[in-house]
């Protein structure tokens, strides 16, 4: 089991993949790793908000447990 990081919309376009699987760590470290693997994410992540298992995540120092899903949401553009 690992952490699933899901990318949406412009974040998916930057990553080039729908999701990646990484080891449990802080949310911050997981996102840094994701950006190291998919460099274009580096420009998009600072604007993004995050959901940890569908709940808004503000504190990125929180440890994301194995089996969790971390969603990467670019700035909303509905309407």
């Amino acid at each position, binding site marked *: 089991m690992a952490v699933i990081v899901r990318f*949406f*919309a*412009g*974040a998916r*376009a930057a990553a080039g993949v729908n999701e990646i699987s990484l080891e449990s760590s802080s949310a911050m470290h997981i996102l840094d790793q994701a950006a190291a693997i998919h460099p274009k994410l580096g*420009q*998009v992540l600072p*604007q993004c908000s995050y*959901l940890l298992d*569908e709940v808004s995540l503000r504190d990125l120092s929180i440890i994301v447990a194995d089996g969790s899903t971390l*969603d990467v*949401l*670019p*700035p*909303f*553009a*509905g*309407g």
Partner: protein
Amino acid sequence: MSNVSGAFVTTDLISVSELSALVRSDTAGAIVTFSGDVRDNDHGREVLSLSYEAHPSAQALLEKVAGEIAAKFEVVNVAVAHRHGDIAIGEAALVAVVSAKHRKAAFDACVALVDEVKAQIPIWKHQVFADGTDEWVNCA
């Protein structure tokens, strides 16, 4: 007393008149509708095609936002729909409708409903331009 008549995240064509019919009431003297339609241009560039992507939580969040607006304003009923997937030029992406006893509350609530949907609902717009480029709106 205020009520959410409907909140829909849908791939179907949105009918303003059908949504408006949901909020009707003989006690309501005012119905205000907003239809946000797909335009053929954006910042001076010609738009060829357009689609929206919705996060799985969008439906639940739309219901929540509609409920907040219904609670905050002196309205009778509110309803709102956001479309996703491919949308043709001229078709509606977002429709918000509000009925109220008096027109000021109807206008104020409809403005706020549209503002909150745009701020709070995880939906994203992708545009393809006539020059061959494309973009996810608001995303560097």
